[in-house]
């Protein structure tokens, strides 16, 4: 931590596997990161890179079996969340740590009105009575920018549009003044104009409430707009970690560099032909013994086939898990 602030959430060496009939799938391999108070940490990766599974492992949201958190520690509020009893974990979930899921269509209960669903965490975690909870629920709906809040509390999820439902989800996650908000692809299912509304809302809420946010996405454009720091995941590992400006200006891992090149933009020069990353993302059927990106990498060499690179510290809070040093254009020292 360069600025010395104590992290609110500290994840070390997390490893999660899924036991399947075909063998163990190593979904999360030795993932470590720290979340500082009030910052927004972006987590980028393609589908299957392990970004959602990482976050769900933290809160014990994965069904076990098949999932199993094998190793690691998750320090929050002085406790290791991987070892506390289920009751304590329940207190944390939806209380001090809020969660916004990707699909607002399926994550709200269709048979309860939204007022009920916002009041549920308030009554369970904060011990408010029905009347107090209703008042707070109205405030929350206003906070996330739903007009006519008192009236809308009585409405059911199907009466809201996609963007509005996502606002309701955010209201639920914010209900108990969380220290940490984990948002798993919260804008992926939404249209761009609605996405812009939600991003705007999020910036506004952060400045008002000052919570730390983990924002999972596969869209580098979204990340560029809101994140303070970014971790890039590939094959269940963190391959690069840097402050947002540094990452976009000076990407060090070949995967990040390739990813930044493949996405077309609406400003600037239009490429005559898109750069592509050959091949497919890996399916992690074996414990990683080599770099997961080796088969698609344009600078891979012998060592990448034999060892899995550790995260090399590059200074300025930037690290990358790659044996190739983009700065010198040659292999790193052992």
């Amino acid at each position, binding site marked *: 931590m360069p600025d010395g602030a104590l992290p609110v959430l500290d994840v070390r060496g997390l490893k999660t596997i899924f036991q399947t009939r075909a063998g163990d799938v190593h979904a999360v391999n030795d993932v470590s990161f720290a979340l500082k108070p009030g910052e927004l940490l972006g987590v980028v990766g393609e589908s299957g890179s392990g970004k959602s599974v990482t976050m769900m492992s933290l809160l014990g949201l994965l069904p076990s079996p098949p999932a199993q958190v094998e190793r690691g520690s998750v320090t929050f509020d002085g406790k290791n969340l991987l070892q506390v009893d289920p009751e304590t974990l329940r207190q944390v979930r939806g209380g001090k740590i809020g969660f916004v899921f990707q699909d607002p269509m399926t994550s709200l209960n269709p048979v309860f009105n939204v007022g009920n669903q916002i009041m549920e965490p308030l009554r369970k975690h904060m011990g408010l009575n029905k009347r107090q909870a209703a008042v707070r629920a109205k405030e929350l709906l206003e906070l996330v920018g739903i007009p006519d809040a008192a009236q809308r509390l009585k409405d059911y999820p199907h009466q809201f549009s996609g963007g509005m439902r996502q606002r309701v989800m955010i209201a639920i996650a914010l209900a108990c003044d969380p220290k940490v908000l984990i948002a798993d692809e919260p804008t992926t299912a939404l249209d761009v104009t609605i996405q812009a509304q939600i991003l705007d809302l999020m910036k506004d809420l952060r400045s008002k409430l000052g919570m730390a946010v983990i924002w999972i996405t596969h869209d580098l454009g979204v990340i*560029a707009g809101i994140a303070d720091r970014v971790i890039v995941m590939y094959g269940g590992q963190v391959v690069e970690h840097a402050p947002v400006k540094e990452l976009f200006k000076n990407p060090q891992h070949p995967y990040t560099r390739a990813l930044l090149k493949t996405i077309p933009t609406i400003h600037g020069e*239009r490429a005559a032909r898109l750069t592509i990353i050959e091949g497919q993302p890996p399916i992690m059927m074996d414990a990683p013994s080599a770099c997961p990106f080796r088969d698609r990498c344009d600078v891979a060499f012998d060592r990448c086939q034999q060892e899995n690179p550790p995260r090399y510290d590059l200074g300025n809070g930037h690290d990358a898990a790659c044996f190739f040093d983009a700065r010198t254009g040659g292999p790193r020292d052992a």
Partner: protein
Amino acid sequence: MLDETRKPLVSVRDLKMHFPIYAGLLRRRVGEVKAVDGVSFDVMEGETLCLVGESGCGKSTCGRAVLRLYDITSGQINIDGQEIGSAPQPKLRPMRPTMQMVFQDPQASLNPRMTVEAIIKEPLDEHTKLSEKEKRDKVGELMDAVGLNRKFAKRYPHAFSGGQRQRIGIARALALNPKFIVCDEPIAALDVSIQAQVVNLLEDLQDQFGLTYLFISHDLSMVRHIATRVAVMYLGKVVELAPREALYADPLHPYTKALLSAVPEPDPSLEGKVERIILKGDVPSPSNPPQGCNFCTRCPSVMDICKQVEPEYREVKPGRFTACHLYNDTADPTAGHEAQESTNKESLT
């Protein structure tokens, strides 16, 4: 880009696709969803016309209606010199080989119980009289063309990744040597690193076979890459149609402006400088569109006239069409002159 010698391969005039709503005990018809409500455009030979818009704006319905996958409510569709808008389905069948479709979800659009070979071969079975061996050869050629290994011909779709499945869908669409392909969000279900592979493939095939695409997408940055011209849809209508560069450099319609400004910029140093127009509210329901201009409920530069009179869709600059009252005076230069002259006269008197 605007090659005058090119002629339209597809021309669509005032296409309407309304879906009836039935309700009540007697299932009476109580209204209709105007999914596509009076759309006109041409697709030139060899070009890629992109249809963009938010979900629910009718872009997919429009794409499907153009191929007559629906029985349209009204309008004319002319593909390669043949009027198909009013043709009955049995008459359409022999015309199907010229027009094909690539669907959005490669998972759902491939039959899980057919092998790749059987999937790609099916159109050949239906529409040609080739021998089994000729068909198998053709399947092999198609698999080569889309970059699939011929050895995988006997495998089933589940054995392939998303990007590979989309390649199977593309090979199937190519089987009958079509001239015109409607690509309905072919990359939306794919990962970013795979999207570029499929887009490059579609571009290569266009060069190789001289294809014409109607490319439906909501991804404006990818559209900028692939399009020759872009049509922007909002609530069942085309609000703006322009050549790619012109549209991105200087959008005319307020909705296009808002849409472009909402696209996240993958560069944090630029991000702060981008002037965002954040639209309030949601898209109105197409079963009950607002009076006047469809966009008047969310438009940042709304005027009184917008709430009463529907703007006419017309050419305001060469090659650039839009439907917006803001461009009323520029639309018809002669009318503008007359108005100016009359005011001049008034000032003289």
